[in-house]
Protein backbone atom coordinates (compact mmCIF):
# COMPACT_ATOMS: atom_id res chain seq x y z
CA UNK A 1 0.00 0.00 0.00
CA UNK A 2 1.71 3.17 -1.13
CA UNK A 3 -0.04 5.39 1.40
CA UNK A 4 1.33 3.32 4.23
CA UNK A 5 4.88 3.25 2.91
CA UNK A 6 4.89 6.99 2.31
CA UNK A 7 3.71 7.63 5.81
CA UNK A 8 6.45 5.50 7.17
CA UNK A 9 9.23 7.12 5.22
CA UNK A 10 8.07 10.71 5.61
CA UNK A 11 9.80 12.53 8.44
CA UNK A 12 7.36 14.09 10.88
CA UNK A 13 8.48 17.59 10.00
CA UNK A 14 9.44 17.39 6.36
CA UNK A 15 7.16 15.28 4.21
CA UNK A 16 8.33 13.41 1.15
CA UNK A 17 7.56 14.96 -2.21
CA UNK A 18 4.60 12.80 -3.16
CA UNK A 19 3.17 12.79 0.36
CA UNK A 20 3.43 16.58 0.51
CA UNK A 21 1.49 17.10 -2.70
CA UNK A 22 -1.06 14.39 -2.01
CA UNK A 23 -1.78 15.76 1.47
CA UNK A 24 -1.92 19.33 0.20
CA UNK A 25 -4.32 18.31 -2.54
CA UNK A 26 -6.54 16.32 -0.18
CA UNK A 27 -6.60 19.11 2.39
CA UNK A 28 -7.63 21.64 -0.20
CA UNK A 29 -10.26 19.28 -1.57
CA UNK A 30 -11.67 18.69 1.93
CA UNK A 31 -11.81 22.36 2.84
CA UNK A 32 -13.21 23.39 -0.52
CA UNK A 33 -15.82 20.62 -0.41
CA UNK A 34 -17.05 21.70 3.02
CA UNK A 35 -17.07 25.35 2.02
CA UNK A 36 -19.11 24.51 -1.07
CA UNK A 37 -21.37 22.22 0.95
CA UNK A 38 -22.19 24.93 3.49
CA UNK A 39 -22.88 27.49 0.77
CA UNK A 40 -24.89 25.00 -1.29
CA UNK A 41 -27.06 24.16 1.72
CA UNK A 42 -27.59 27.84 2.31
CA UNK A 43 -28.33 28.79 -1.32
CA UNK A 44 -30.63 25.85 -2.01
CA UNK A 45 -32.48 26.30 1.27
CA UNK A 46 -31.56 22.80 2.47
CA UNK A 47 -30.10 24.43 5.53
CA UNK A 48 -33.57 25.45 6.69
CA UNK A 49 -34.24 21.80 7.37
CA UNK A 50 -31.11 21.53 9.45
CA UNK A 51 -30.69 24.70 11.47
CA UNK A 52 -32.69 27.26 13.37
CA UNK A 53 -32.72 30.48 11.29
CA UNK A 54 -30.72 32.28 14.00
CA UNK A 55 -27.68 30.13 13.28
CA UNK A 56 -27.77 30.03 9.49
CA UNK A 57 -25.45 33.02 9.18
CA UNK A 58 -22.82 31.10 11.12
CA UNK A 59 -22.96 28.25 8.62
CA UNK A 60 -22.62 30.37 5.51
CA UNK A 61 -19.96 32.59 7.06
CA UNK A 62 -18.00 29.42 7.75
CA UNK A 63 -18.61 28.40 4.12
CA UNK A 64 -17.19 31.68 2.81
CA UNK A 65 -14.27 31.41 5.17
CA UNK A 66 -13.41 27.87 4.08
CA UNK A 67 -13.51 28.84 0.41
CA UNK A 68 -11.32 31.85 1.15
CA UNK A 69 -8.92 29.56 2.98
CA UNK A 70 -8.76 27.28 -0.06
CA UNK A 71 -7.89 30.20 -2.32
CA UNK A 72 -5.15 31.45 -0.01
CA UNK A 73 -3.75 27.94 0.28
CA UNK A 74 -3.84 27.55 -3.50
CA UNK A 75 -1.87 30.78 -3.98
CA UNK A 76 0.64 29.68 -1.39
CA UNK A 77 1.09 26.26 -2.99
CA UNK A 78 1.60 27.80 -6.39
CA UNK A 79 4.37 29.92 -4.88
CA UNK A 80 5.99 26.78 -3.48
CA UNK A 81 5.71 25.15 -6.89
CA UNK A 82 7.24 28.17 -8.62
CA UNK A 83 10.12 28.27 -6.17
CA UNK A 84 10.78 24.57 -6.75
CA UNK A 85 10.74 24.99 -10.51
CA UNK A 86 13.35 27.72 -10.26
CA UNK A 87 15.53 25.91 -7.82
CA UNK A 88 14.98 22.20 -7.49
CA UNK A 89 16.63 21.71 -4.15
CA UNK A 90 14.37 24.25 -2.49
CA UNK A 91 12.99 22.36 0.48
CA UNK A 92 9.31 21.94 1.08
CA UNK A 93 7.94 24.23 3.76
CA UNK A 94 7.94 22.64 7.14
CA UNK A 95 4.69 21.88 8.79
CA UNK A 96 3.78 22.31 12.41
CA UNK A 97 4.19 19.14 14.46
CA UNK A 98 1.18 17.01 13.99
CA UNK A 99 -0.50 14.76 16.48
CA UNK A 100 -3.14 12.54 15.09
CA UNK A 101 -5.37 9.65 15.88
CA UNK A 102 -5.40 8.32 12.35
CA UNK A 103 -3.13 9.00 9.40
CA UNK A 104 -3.89 12.50 8.06
CA UNK A 105 -4.83 11.10 4.67
CA UNK A 106 -7.71 9.17 6.24
CA UNK A 107 -9.16 12.24 7.94
CA UNK A 108 -8.95 14.23 4.72
CA UNK A 109 -10.49 11.42 2.70
CA UNK A 110 -13.30 11.03 5.24
CA UNK A 111 -13.99 14.77 5.10
CA UNK A 112 -14.00 14.76 1.29
CA UNK A 113 -16.23 11.70 1.00
CA UNK A 114 -18.77 12.94 3.56
CA UNK A 115 -18.87 16.39 1.96
CA UNK A 116 -19.40 14.91 -1.53
CA UNK A 117 -22.14 12.73 -0.12
CA UNK A 118 -23.63 15.73 1.64
CA UNK A 119 -23.74 17.65 -1.64
CA UNK A 120 -25.92 14.89 -3.11
CA UNK A 121 -28.02 14.40 -0.02
CA UNK A 122 -31.41 16.06 0.13
CA UNK A 123 -32.65 16.30 3.71
CA UNK A 124 -36.32 15.50 4.15
CA UNK A 125 -38.55 17.01 6.80
CA UNK A 126 -38.92 14.57 9.65
CA UNK A 127 -41.76 12.14 9.05
CA UNK A 128 -44.85 11.48 11.09
CA UNK A 129 -43.32 8.12 11.97
CA UNK A 130 -40.45 9.98 13.57
CA UNK A 131 -43.00 12.09 15.46
CA UNK A 132 -44.67 8.94 16.75
CA UNK A 133 -41.31 7.50 17.77
CA UNK A 134 -40.46 10.66 19.62
CA UNK A 135 -43.95 10.86 21.13
CA UNK A 136 -46.21 13.66 20.00
CA UNK A 137 -46.98 15.57 23.12
CA UNK A 138 -50.65 16.32 22.83
CA UNK A 139 -50.82 17.74 26.26
CA UNK A 140 -47.76 19.59 25.13
CA UNK A 141 -45.86 19.51 28.32
CA UNK A 142 -42.52 19.55 26.63
CA UNK A 143 -42.70 23.11 25.49
CA UNK A 144 -40.81 26.07 26.73
CA UNK A 145 -42.02 27.44 30.00
CA UNK A 146 -41.84 30.99 28.86
CA UNK A 147 -44.62 33.12 30.21
CA UNK A 148 -43.90 35.70 27.53
CA UNK A 149 -45.09 33.14 25.00
CA UNK A 150 -48.55 33.97 26.32
CA UNK A 151 -49.80 36.30 23.65
CA UNK A 152 -53.28 37.20 24.75
CA UNK A 153 -53.55 39.84 22.10
CA UNK A 154 -53.20 37.38 19.23
CA UNK A 155 -56.48 36.60 17.53
CA UNK A 156 -57.26 32.89 17.84
CA UNK A 157 -57.36 32.37 14.07
CA UNK A 158 -53.90 33.88 13.71
CA UNK A 159 -52.24 31.52 16.18
CA UNK A 160 -49.88 28.93 14.79
CA UNK A 161 -49.88 25.40 16.12
CA UNK A 162 -46.97 26.11 18.44
CA UNK A 163 -48.67 29.24 19.75
CA UNK A 164 -51.73 27.20 20.63
CA UNK A 165 -49.52 24.75 22.39
CA UNK A 166 -47.71 27.39 24.39
CA UNK A 167 -51.00 28.90 25.34
CA UNK A 168 -52.27 25.53 26.52
CA UNK A 169 -49.10 25.10 28.45
CA UNK A 170 -49.64 28.33 30.34
CA UNK A 171 -53.35 27.79 30.85
CA UNK A 172 -54.22 24.15 30.32
CA UNK A 173 -58.02 24.22 30.83
CA UNK A 174 -59.42 23.19 27.41
CA UNK A 175 -62.85 24.73 28.06
CA UNK A 176 -61.23 28.16 28.07
CA UNK A 177 -60.72 27.88 24.34
CA UNK A 178 -64.01 26.32 23.28
CA UNK A 179 -65.49 27.99 20.24
CA UNK A 180 -62.34 29.89 19.33
CA UNK A 181 -61.52 29.90 15.64
CA UNK A 182 -58.58 27.81 14.48
CA UNK A 183 -56.44 28.15 11.38
CA UNK A 184 -53.27 26.11 11.63
CA UNK A 185 -50.87 24.28 9.35
CA UNK A 186 -49.03 21.06 9.94
CA UNK A 187 -48.60 17.52 8.76
CA UNK A 188 -51.08 14.72 9.34
CA UNK A 189 -50.19 12.03 11.79
CA UNK A 190 -52.12 8.88 12.64
CA UNK A 191 -52.06 8.62 16.39
CA UNK A 192 -52.72 5.02 17.41
CA UNK A 193 -54.62 5.79 20.62
CA UNK A 194 -57.42 7.96 19.21
CA UNK A 195 -60.39 6.80 17.10
CA UNK A 196 -60.26 6.50 13.31
CA UNK A 197 -62.40 9.60 12.86
CA UNK A 198 -59.66 11.77 14.24
CA UNK A 199 -56.31 12.69 12.77
CA UNK A 200 -53.39 14.38 14.46
CA UNK A 201 -51.94 17.63 13.15
CA UNK A 202 -48.32 18.09 14.15
CA UNK A 203 -45.19 20.09 13.60
CA UNK A 204 -41.62 19.76 14.69
CA UNK A 205 -40.18 22.49 16.84
CA UNK A 206 -36.47 23.18 16.76
CA UNK A 207 -34.52 25.38 19.11
CA UNK A 208 -31.11 25.13 17.53
CA UNK A 209 -30.76 22.43 14.92
CA UNK A 210 -32.59 19.36 13.68
CA UNK A 211 -30.84 17.32 16.36
CA UNK A 212 -33.13 18.76 19.01
CA UNK A 213 -36.36 18.71 16.98
CA UNK A 214 -39.34 17.61 19.00
CA UNK A 215 -42.90 17.15 17.75
CA UNK A 216 -45.96 18.94 19.07
CA UNK A 217 -49.49 18.39 17.90
CA UNK A 218 -53.24 18.45 18.48
CA UNK A 219 -55.97 15.97 17.59
CA UNK A 220 -58.37 16.99 14.83
CA UNK A 221 -61.97 15.81 14.60
CA UNK A 222 -62.61 15.15 10.91
CA UNK A 223 -65.72 16.70 9.30
CA UNK A 224 -66.64 13.38 7.66
CA UNK A 225 -65.25 9.92 7.00
CA UNK A 226 -62.20 8.42 8.62
CA UNK A 227 -58.59 9.37 8.50
CA UNK A 228 -57.61 7.01 5.68
CA UNK A 229 -58.26 9.89 3.28
CA UNK A 230 -55.64 11.96 5.12
CA UNK A 231 -52.31 10.29 4.57
CA UNK A 232 -49.62 10.71 7.20
CA UNK A 233 -46.97 13.30 6.31
CA UNK A 234 -49.28 15.22 3.97
CA UNK A 235 -49.41 18.87 4.97
CA UNK A 236 -52.79 20.47 5.62
CA UNK A 237 -54.22 23.83 6.49
CA UNK A 238 -56.96 23.17 8.99
CA UNK A 239 -59.78 25.58 9.64
CA UNK A 240 -62.38 25.06 12.29
CA UNK A 241 -62.93 25.75 15.94
CA UNK A 242 -61.80 24.44 19.28
CA UNK A 243 -63.87 21.94 21.25
CA UNK A 244 -63.19 19.85 24.31
CA UNK A 245 -63.46 16.07 24.05
CA UNK A 246 -62.36 13.07 26.01
CA UNK A 247 -59.94 11.03 23.93
CA UNK A 248 -57.85 8.18 25.22
CA UNK A 249 -59.35 8.75 28.69
CA UNK A 250 -58.12 12.31 28.75
CA UNK A 251 -60.11 15.50 28.55
CA UNK A 252 -58.36 17.57 25.98
CA UNK A 253 -58.52 20.32 23.44
CA UNK A 254 -59.52 19.10 19.96
CA UNK A 255 -59.80 20.98 16.70
CA UNK A 256 -63.25 20.50 15.20
CA UNK A 257 -62.26 20.85 11.56
CA UNK A 258 -64.53 22.41 8.96
CA UNK A 259 -62.03 22.14 6.13
CA UNK A 260 -58.72 20.39 5.66
CA UNK A 261 -56.86 21.83 2.66
CA UNK A 262 -53.80 19.94 1.41
CA UNK A 263 -50.84 22.32 1.08
CA UNK A 264 -47.30 21.75 -0.17
CA UNK A 265 -44.63 21.09 2.40
CA UNK A 266 -43.31 24.52 3.44
CA UNK A 267 -39.68 25.39 2.72
CA UNK A 268 -39.20 25.70 6.41
CA UNK A 269 -41.26 22.97 8.02
CA UNK A 270 -40.20 23.75 11.58
CA UNK A 271 -41.66 26.14 14.06
CA UNK A 272 -39.67 27.97 16.63
Amino acid at each position, binding site marked *: MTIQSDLETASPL*RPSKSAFWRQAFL*DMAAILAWGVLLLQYWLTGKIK*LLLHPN*YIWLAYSAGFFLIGLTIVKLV*QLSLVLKARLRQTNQPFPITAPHL*SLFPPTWS*SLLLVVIALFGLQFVPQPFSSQMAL*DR*GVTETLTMTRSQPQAFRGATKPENRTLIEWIRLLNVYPEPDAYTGQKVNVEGFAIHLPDIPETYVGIARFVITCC*AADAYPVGLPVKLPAGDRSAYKPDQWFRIEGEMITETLADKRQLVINAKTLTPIPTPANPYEF
Partner: protein
Amino acid sequence: MTHLNATLTLFFSLLVEAIPFLLIGVLFSSALLFFVDERKLVAAIPKHPLLAALAGSLIGFLFPVCECGNVPVARRLIIQGAPAAMAIGFLLAAPVVNPVVFWATWVAFRDQPEMVFLRIGFSLLIATLIGWVFSSQTDLRPLMQPAVARAMLVPQAARRAHRPSRATSTSSAAGLDSPLLQSGTFFLGQSNQPLQFDGSGQAAAMMVDANLSRPVPERLRLMMDNVIQELRELGGILIIGSAIAAIVQVAVPREMILSLGQGTVSSIVAMMTLAAVVSICSTVDAFFALSFASTFTTGSLLAFLIFGPMIDLKNFALLVTVFRPRAIVYIFVLAGQLTFLVTLLINLYVS
Protein backbone atom coordinates in the same frame (compact mmCIF):
# COMPACT_ATOMS: atom_id res chain seq x y z
CA MET B 1 -35.92 4.50 4.58
CA THR B 2 -37.41 7.37 6.59
CA HIS B 3 -35.20 6.31 9.46
CA LEU B 4 -32.17 6.47 7.24
CA ASN B 5 -33.11 9.91 6.02
CA ALA B 6 -33.82 11.08 9.56
CA THR B 7 -30.45 9.78 10.72
CA LEU B 8 -28.67 11.54 7.87
CA THR B 9 -30.60 14.75 8.48
CA LEU B 10 -29.61 14.68 12.15
CA PHE B 11 -26.06 13.86 11.18
CA PHE B 12 -25.70 16.76 8.77
CA SER B 13 -27.51 19.15 11.06
CA LEU B 14 -25.05 18.37 13.85
CA LEU B 15 -22.15 18.87 11.45
CA VAL B 16 -23.47 22.07 9.89
CA GLU B 17 -24.15 23.43 13.37
CA ALA B 18 -20.80 22.38 14.80
CA ILE B 19 -18.40 23.22 11.97
CA PRO B 20 -18.59 27.03 12.37
CA PHE B 21 -17.86 26.62 16.07
CA LEU B 22 -15.08 24.15 15.34
CA LEU B 23 -13.65 26.73 12.95
CA ILE B 24 -13.80 29.46 15.60
CA GLY B 25 -12.12 27.12 18.08
CA VAL B 26 -9.38 26.11 15.67
CA LEU B 27 -8.75 29.74 14.69
CA PHE B 28 -8.36 30.74 18.33
CA SER B 29 -6.16 27.77 19.00
CA SER B 30 -3.90 28.49 16.01
CA ALA B 31 -3.70 32.20 16.75
CA LEU B 32 -2.70 31.21 20.25
CA LEU B 33 0.07 29.02 18.83
CA PHE B 34 1.61 31.67 16.63
CA PHE B 35 0.85 34.93 18.35
CA VAL B 36 0.64 34.25 22.07
CA ASP B 37 3.48 32.90 24.11
CA GLU B 38 1.54 30.35 26.07
CA ARG B 39 4.44 29.81 28.33
CA LYS B 40 4.11 33.38 29.55
CA LEU B 41 0.53 32.47 30.31
CA VAL B 42 1.61 29.20 31.85
CA ALA B 43 4.33 30.94 33.83
CA ALA B 44 1.87 33.51 35.14
CA ILE B 45 -0.26 30.77 36.62
CA PRO B 46 -0.07 30.60 40.41
CA LYS B 47 1.98 27.74 41.81
CA HIS B 48 -0.65 26.52 44.27
CA PRO B 49 -2.58 23.71 42.57
CA LEU B 50 -5.98 24.98 43.69
CA LEU B 51 -5.26 28.50 42.43
CA ALA B 52 -3.77 27.09 39.23
CA ALA B 53 -6.93 25.09 38.63
CA LEU B 54 -9.06 28.16 39.26
CA ALA B 55 -6.93 30.28 36.95
CA GLY B 56 -7.09 27.60 34.25
CA SER B 57 -10.85 27.46 34.59
CA LEU B 58 -11.11 31.21 34.12
CA ILE B 59 -8.94 31.33 30.98
CA GLY B 60 -12.08 30.52 29.03
CA PHE B 61 -13.06 34.15 29.41
CA LEU B 62 -10.08 35.07 27.25
CA PHE B 63 -10.72 32.37 24.65
CA PRO B 64 -14.39 31.91 23.85
CA VAL B 65 -14.27 28.33 22.59
CA CYS B 66 -16.98 25.73 22.83
CA GLU B 67 -16.37 22.11 23.57
CA CYS B 68 -15.26 21.38 20.01
CA GLY B 69 -12.64 24.09 20.26
CA ASN B 70 -11.32 23.69 23.78
CA VAL B 71 -9.63 20.35 23.17
CA PRO B 72 -7.01 21.68 20.72
CA VAL B 73 -6.24 24.60 23.03
CA ALA B 74 -6.00 22.32 26.08
CA ARG B 75 -3.82 19.94 24.11
CA ARG B 76 -1.50 22.78 23.25
CA LEU B 77 -1.42 24.06 26.83
CA ILE B 78 -0.46 20.57 27.97
CA ILE B 79 2.27 20.32 25.35
CA GLN B 80 3.61 23.71 26.45
CA GLY B 81 4.06 22.33 29.93
CA ALA B 82 1.01 23.79 31.61
CA PRO B 83 0.46 22.33 35.08
CA ALA B 84 -2.10 19.55 35.13
CA ALA B 85 -4.42 21.55 37.36
CA MET B 86 -4.54 24.44 34.94
CA ALA B 87 -4.94 22.34 31.79
CA ILE B 88 -7.71 20.17 33.19
CA GLY B 89 -9.44 23.19 34.72
CA PHE B 90 -9.36 24.88 31.34
CA LEU B 91 -10.53 21.77 29.49
CA LEU B 92 -13.58 21.36 31.69
CA ALA B 93 -14.54 24.97 32.33
CA ALA B 94 -13.72 26.78 29.07
CA PRO B 95 -16.78 25.58 27.14
CA VAL B 96 -19.06 27.12 29.78
CA VAL B 97 -17.11 29.85 31.53
CA ASN B 98 -16.85 32.14 28.52
CA PRO B 99 -18.69 35.22 27.28
CA VAL B 100 -20.43 33.57 24.32
CA VAL B 101 -22.02 30.85 26.42
CA PHE B 102 -22.86 33.31 29.18
CA TRP B 103 -24.76 35.38 26.63
CA ALA B 104 -26.54 32.41 25.05
CA THR B 105 -27.65 31.03 28.40
CA TRP B 106 -28.80 34.46 29.47
CA VAL B 107 -30.94 34.79 26.35
CA ALA B 108 -32.42 31.35 26.83
CA PHE B 109 -33.20 31.66 30.53
CA ARG B 110 -34.02 35.33 30.72
CA ASP B 111 -36.79 34.50 33.17
CA GLN B 112 -34.51 32.53 35.44
CA PRO B 113 -31.22 34.44 35.61
CA GLU B 114 -30.20 32.20 38.49
CA MET B 115 -29.73 29.42 35.92
CA VAL B 116 -26.94 31.41 34.25
CA PHE B 117 -25.07 32.04 37.47
CA LEU B 118 -25.62 28.56 38.85
CA ARG B 119 -24.42 27.04 35.58
CA ILE B 120 -21.26 29.11 35.44
CA GLY B 121 -20.59 28.91 39.17
CA PHE B 122 -20.98 25.14 39.38
CA SER B 123 -18.95 24.54 36.21
CA LEU B 124 -16.19 26.64 37.69
CA LEU B 125 -16.39 24.78 40.98
CA ILE B 126 -16.34 21.32 39.40
CA ALA B 127 -13.57 22.16 36.93
CA THR B 128 -11.44 23.64 39.69
CA LEU B 129 -11.96 20.63 41.94
CA ILE B 130 -11.11 18.13 39.20
CA GLY B 131 -8.11 20.21 38.17
CA TRP B 132 -7.00 20.17 41.78
CA VAL B 133 -7.37 16.40 41.93
CA PHE B 134 -5.31 16.00 38.76
CA SER B 135 -2.57 18.21 40.19
CA SER B 136 -1.51 15.26 42.33
CA GLN B 137 -0.22 13.82 39.06
CA THR B 138 2.86 15.99 38.53
CA ASP B 139 3.87 14.28 35.29
CA LEU B 140 0.84 14.05 33.07
CA ARG B 141 2.52 11.96 30.41
CA PRO B 142 1.34 8.52 31.54
CA LEU B 143 -2.23 9.76 31.06
CA MET B 144 -1.66 11.11 27.57
CA GLN B 145 -1.82 9.54 24.17
CA PRO B 146 1.75 8.54 23.24
CA ALA B 147 1.94 11.12 20.44
CA VAL B 148 0.99 13.93 22.84
CA ALA B 149 3.25 12.60 25.58
CA ARG B 150 6.25 12.62 23.22
CA ALA B 151 5.56 16.22 22.25
CA MET B 152 5.25 17.36 25.84
CA LEU B 153 7.85 19.28 27.71
CA VAL B 154 8.90 17.77 30.97
CA PRO B 155 7.70 20.18 33.65
CA GLN B 156 11.13 21.59 34.67
CA ALA B 157 12.33 21.82 31.13
CA ALA B 158 9.27 23.81 30.26
CA ARG B 159 10.18 26.48 32.72
CA ARG B 160 13.80 26.69 31.65
CA ALA B 161 12.97 26.67 27.98
CA HIS B 162 10.85 29.72 28.45
CA ARG B 163 13.15 32.18 26.79
CA PRO B 164 12.33 33.50 23.32
CA SER B 165 15.39 32.92 21.16
CA ARG B 166 16.21 35.86 18.96
CA ALA B 167 19.01 33.94 17.31
CA THR B 168 16.59 31.69 15.50
CA SER B 169 15.17 34.24 13.14
CA THR B 170 18.46 35.85 12.20
CA SER B 171 20.22 32.60 11.46
CA SER B 172 17.51 31.14 9.29
CA ALA B 173 17.77 33.04 6.07
CA ALA B 174 14.54 32.32 4.28
CA GLY B 175 12.64 31.26 7.34
CA LEU B 176 12.01 28.02 5.50
CA ASP B 177 15.27 26.31 6.16
CA SER B 178 14.59 26.26 9.84
CA PRO B 179 17.25 25.14 12.28
CA LEU B 180 14.46 23.21 13.94
CA LEU B 181 15.10 20.45 11.52
CA GLN B 182 18.41 19.60 13.05
CA SER B 183 16.75 19.25 16.34
CA GLY B 184 19.43 18.06 18.74
CA THR B 185 22.45 19.99 17.58
CA PHE B 186 20.52 23.16 17.05
CA PHE B 187 19.30 23.19 20.52
CA LEU B 188 22.60 22.51 22.16
CA GLY B 189 24.20 25.13 19.98
CA GLN B 190 21.97 28.02 20.83
CA SER B 191 21.39 27.31 24.44
CA ASN B 192 23.66 25.52 26.80
CA GLN B 193 20.86 24.00 28.74
CA PRO B 194 20.18 20.78 26.93
CA LEU B 195 16.58 19.74 27.34
CA GLN B 196 15.74 16.23 28.36
CA PHE B 197 15.15 14.77 24.97
CA ASP B 198 13.21 11.62 24.59
CA GLY B 199 12.59 11.59 20.90
CA SER B 200 11.51 14.07 18.32
CA GLY B 201 8.81 15.37 20.62
CA GLN B 202 10.19 18.61 21.94
CA ALA B 203 9.67 19.95 18.45
CA ALA B 204 6.37 21.39 19.54
CA ALA B 205 7.90 23.39 22.31
CA MET B 206 10.78 24.56 20.18
CA MET B 207 8.40 25.56 17.46
CA VAL B 208 6.79 28.10 19.68
CA ASP B 209 10.04 29.80 20.56
CA ALA B 210 10.85 29.93 16.91
CA ASN B 211 7.32 30.87 15.94
CA LEU B 212 7.16 33.95 18.05
CA SER B 213 10.36 35.29 16.53
CA ARG B 214 9.29 34.71 12.95
CA PRO B 215 8.12 37.62 10.81
CA VAL B 216 4.36 38.11 10.87
CA PRO B 217 3.64 36.98 7.26
CA GLU B 218 5.50 33.75 7.93
CA ARG B 219 3.54 33.28 11.13
CA LEU B 220 0.30 33.86 9.27
CA ARG B 221 1.25 31.18 6.75
CA LEU B 222 2.07 28.72 9.51
CA MET B 223 -1.12 29.66 11.32
CA MET B 224 -3.11 28.88 8.18
CA ASP B 225 -1.39 25.53 7.80
CA ASN B 226 -2.16 24.79 11.39
CA VAL B 227 -5.81 25.74 10.96
CA ILE B 228 -6.02 23.34 8.02
CA GLN B 229 -4.32 20.54 9.92
CA GLU B 230 -6.54 20.86 12.95
CA LEU B 231 -9.67 21.22 10.85
CA ARG B 232 -8.72 18.07 9.02
CA GLU B 233 -8.09 16.07 12.13
CA LEU B 234 -10.83 17.38 14.41
CA GLY B 235 -13.25 17.51 11.49
CA GLY B 236 -12.69 13.82 10.80
CA ILE B 237 -13.40 13.01 14.42
CA LEU B 238 -16.38 15.32 14.55
CA ILE B 239 -17.84 13.35 11.65
CA ILE B 240 -17.48 10.08 13.52
CA GLY B 241 -18.89 11.55 16.75
CA SER B 242 -21.85 13.13 14.98
CA ALA B 243 -22.57 9.87 13.19
CA ILE B 244 -22.69 8.00 16.50
CA ALA B 245 -24.85 10.71 18.11
CA ALA B 246 -27.28 10.68 15.16
CA ILE B 247 -27.60 6.90 15.10
CA VAL B 248 -28.19 6.67 18.84
CA GLN B 249 -30.79 9.45 18.69
CA VAL B 250 -32.82 7.68 16.07
CA ALA B 251 -32.32 4.17 17.42
CA VAL B 252 -33.31 4.92 21.03
CA PRO B 253 -36.75 6.56 21.24
CA ARG B 254 -36.26 9.80 23.07
CA GLU B 255 -39.51 9.13 24.92
CA MET B 256 -37.75 6.32 26.71
CA ILE B 257 -35.06 8.65 27.98
CA LEU B 258 -37.65 11.25 28.93
CA SER B 259 -39.94 8.88 30.80
CA LEU B 260 -37.28 8.77 33.49
CA GLY B 261 -37.48 12.50 33.87
CA GLN B 262 -39.90 13.26 36.68
CA GLY B 263 -38.17 12.18 39.89
CA THR B 264 -35.64 14.17 41.86
CA VAL B 265 -32.87 11.69 41.14
CA SER B 266 -34.00 10.07 37.92
CA SER B 267 -34.51 13.40 36.18
CA ILE B 268 -30.90 14.32 36.84
CA VAL B 269 -29.66 10.96 35.62
CA ALA B 270 -31.90 11.22 32.54
CA MET B 271 -30.71 14.72 31.70
CA MET B 272 -27.07 13.80 32.14
CA THR B 273 -27.57 10.83 29.83
CA LEU B 274 -29.34 13.03 27.31
CA ALA B 275 -26.50 15.55 27.52
CA ALA B 276 -23.96 12.86 26.78
CA VAL B 277 -26.01 11.43 23.90
CA VAL B 278 -27.11 14.60 22.13
CA SER B 279 -23.58 16.09 22.03
CA ILE B 280 -24.95 19.54 21.44
CA CYS B 281 -22.46 22.41 21.34
CA SER B 282 -22.21 24.36 24.59
CA THR B 283 -22.83 27.60 22.75
CA VAL B 284 -26.34 26.54 21.84
CA ASP B 285 -27.26 23.89 24.41
CA ALA B 286 -29.10 26.37 26.62
CA PHE B 287 -31.81 26.65 23.97
CA PHE B 288 -32.07 22.92 23.82
CA ALA B 289 -32.40 22.65 27.60
CA LEU B 290 -35.04 25.34 27.50
CA SER B 291 -37.37 23.04 25.59
CA PHE B 292 -37.39 20.74 28.63
CA ALA B 293 -37.87 23.53 31.12
CA SER B 294 -41.48 22.72 31.91
CA THR B 295 -41.11 18.99 32.50
CA PHE B 296 -37.77 18.72 34.12
CA THR B 297 -36.54 19.82 37.50
CA THR B 298 -34.26 22.85 37.67
CA GLY B 299 -31.52 20.63 39.02
CA SER B 300 -31.71 18.28 36.07
CA LEU B 301 -31.58 21.15 33.58
CA LEU B 302 -28.49 22.43 35.36
CA ALA B 303 -27.04 18.93 35.21
CA PHE B 304 -27.58 18.98 31.44
CA LEU B 305 -25.94 22.38 31.09
CA ILE B 306 -22.98 21.56 33.32
CA PHE B 307 -22.26 17.97 32.32
CA GLY B 308 -22.90 18.19 28.57
CA PRO B 309 -20.06 20.60 27.79
CA MET B 310 -17.63 18.55 29.89
CA ILE B 311 -18.37 15.10 28.52
CA ASP B 312 -20.45 13.92 25.59
CA LEU B 313 -20.13 11.44 22.74
CA LYS B 314 -18.69 13.95 20.27
CA ASN B 315 -16.38 15.46 22.85
CA PHE B 316 -15.27 11.98 23.86
CA ALA B 317 -13.99 11.39 20.35
CA LEU B 318 -11.97 14.61 20.59
CA LEU B 319 -10.62 13.81 24.05
CA VAL B 320 -9.29 10.50 22.74
CA THR B 321 -6.79 12.49 20.66
CA VAL B 322 -5.24 13.85 23.84
CA PHE B 323 -5.76 11.45 26.72
CA ARG B 324 -5.51 7.75 27.21
CA PRO B 325 -8.87 6.14 27.95
CA ARG B 326 -7.95 5.76 31.63
CA ALA B 327 -7.67 9.52 32.10
CA ILE B 328 -10.94 10.10 30.25
CA VAL B 329 -12.66 7.66 32.57
CA TYR B 330 -11.31 9.54 35.62
CA ILE B 331 -12.55 12.85 34.24
CA PHE B 332 -15.87 11.34 33.23
CA VAL B 333 -16.53 9.74 36.61
CA LEU B 334 -15.43 12.75 38.65
CA ALA B 335 -17.37 15.22 36.52
CA GLY B 336 -20.44 12.98 36.60
CA GLN B 337 -20.40 12.51 40.35
CA LEU B 338 -19.80 16.16 41.17
CA THR B 339 -22.47 17.32 38.73
CA PHE B 340 -24.90 14.83 40.22
CA LEU B 341 -24.08 15.96 43.74
CA VAL B 342 -24.48 19.71 43.22
CA THR B 343 -27.61 19.44 41.12
CA LEU B 344 -29.17 17.02 43.60
CA LEU B 345 -28.56 19.64 46.30
CA ILE B 346 -30.35 22.17 44.10
CA ASN B 347 -33.27 19.81 43.62
CA LEU B 348 -33.53 18.98 47.30
CA TYR B 349 -32.95 22.33 48.95
CA VAL B 350 -33.48 25.13 46.47
CA SER B 351 -36.23 24.38 43.99
